[in-house]
């Protein structure tokens, strides 16, 4: 019984698509555009997130100690910092390491200027803890906490970078969410329109079906199939376009704008498609089924 109903639903649903060729194509086209934009937004967002993450990882907080700190004081501060749940990792940077890093960064290619410093460490007493947080959004709060700790002389951090990254992250998520939501609503509306036309074309047939005792489920099945097929086709095609397009664009950027790769790393296409294909299929299927079931339900209630 169920198999027969499914077979009937598929057969009639596919027939509906071909009967309303132009509207079906228009709907597939619009869903394609929506899913394409969704895919592009998703790909860009994923890359932005990767870049942000990379930037986040480089935003650390340096905690310096009081000069007259008693024996074991530094360890106690280290333990205290580690105990915060917002803290990802804590690394002790000795004065020697700090000086070596400074020399490398500032006097690169000008080593002769260092002659006067031989055997001396101007950053003596500048050992510190380098603290990395789980999320850049905790920066402000944790800097305050660290400043308040006993034995801490100074806390240094890249204020602007930390706040900027946090805000950019949030803004990106909001904008992408809004775009995706609008596109989804437009798609549902379009599928609903196409199915309405299908219903209008088959009005007489549906009226006869009702009179001879067809259940609503039976009448609904072909329209749901129609919506689902349109949704799936409309989501698969842009996936192919995005797969090829992404590769071409990333290769082009790497080739022509090599300097960009210094501060941003592109997410590999396969890593994007792993999420994008199932998500798009689900969204396409969802749009198709939702649009058609709303419409047919409304019609059958009358």
């Amino acid at each position, binding site marked *: 019984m169920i198999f027969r109903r499914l077979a009937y639903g598929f057969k009639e649903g596919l027939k509906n698509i071909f009967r309303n060729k132009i509207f079906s194509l228009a709907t597939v086209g619009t869903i394609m555009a929506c899913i394409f934009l969704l895919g592009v937004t998703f790909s860009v967002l994923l890359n932005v997130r990767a870049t942000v993450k990379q930037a986040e990882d480089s935003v650390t907080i340096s905690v310096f100690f009081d000069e007259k700190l008693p024996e074991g004081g530094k360890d106690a501060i280290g333990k205290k910092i580690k105990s915060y749940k917002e803290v990802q990792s804590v690394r002790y940077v000795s004065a020697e390491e700090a000086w070596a890093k400074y020399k490398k960064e500032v006097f690169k290619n000008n080593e002769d200027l260092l002659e006067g410093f031989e055997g001396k460490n101007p950053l003596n007493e500048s050992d510190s803890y380098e603290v990395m947080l789980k999320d850049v959004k905790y920066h402000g709060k944790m800097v305050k906490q660290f400043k308040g700790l006993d034995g801490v002389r100074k806390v240094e951090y890249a204020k602007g970078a930390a706040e900027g990254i946090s805000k950019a992250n949030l803004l990106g998520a909001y904008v992408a969410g809004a775009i995706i939501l609008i596109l989804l609503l437009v798609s549902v509306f379009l599928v609903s329109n196409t199915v309405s036309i299908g219903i209008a074309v088959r009005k007489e047939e549906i009226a006869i079906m*009702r*009179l001879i*005792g067809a259940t609503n489920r039976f009448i609904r099945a072909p329209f749901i199939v129609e919506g689902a097929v349109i949704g799936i086709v409309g989501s698969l095609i842009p996936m192919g376009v995005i797969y090829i397009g992404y590769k071409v664009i990333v290769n082009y950027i790497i080739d022509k704008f090599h300097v960009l790769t210094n501060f941003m790393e592109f997410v590999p296409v396969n890593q994007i498609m792993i999420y994008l294909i199932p998500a798009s299929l689900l969204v396409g299927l969802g749009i198709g089924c939702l649009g058609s079931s709303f419409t047919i339900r409304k019609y059958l209630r009358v």
Partner: protein
Amino acid sequence: MITLQNVTKEYQKGSIGLYNVSLEVNKGEFAFIVGKSGSGKTTLIKLLLKELEATSGDIVVNGYHYQKMKRRQIPYLRRQIGVVFQDFRLLRDRSIYENVAFAQQVIEVPKRAMKRQVQNVLELVGLGNRLRALPDELSGGEQQRVAIARALVNHPALLLADEPTGNLDPQNAQEIMDLLVEIQKRGTTVIVVTHNKEIVNQMGKRVIALNEGAIHHDEKGGTYDI
């Protein structure tokens, strides 16, 4: 088979479709429903098909109590009732076989049984050799026979025919009426709504005459006179 008790149908704008109608039709009976336009014939048919809800009163058809029924039971009630319309209501893009098979498809009859039953019913209405023809290739009388075959193929207990001869010439009209009588003789209850005075008077069947939504007269072997 059919019981109506004090049935009234009032439309939203206040007009009365049917007023306090009570009647009973037995299993296997043949009855005409006659009356002028606006007398309540169509309202009565729509109430029997449960396309409309009665404002008050009780309707029982083949054990289904309309007032107590749930919405989801309506398709199953309608499988007990075959309907034939004046304008045939055939699907123009499908063959005669497909039009009749459609009724069986809708109630999910297995394909093999469907083939046998469609063939049988088309033979009963005299169209056993026109299976592949499209409706537009048939005469009005033949198209009405297809519509009757579609109404009969699911073996309904009740056949409702709404002006089945309205679009036919006298000879075809007579043939359709003969076919309906034949169907009644096989045990199906048949109710025919008609304006065809000659046929009603000539057949000597039960006549339920409606006037302004109420029963004017209800007589076995009656006539059209209102």
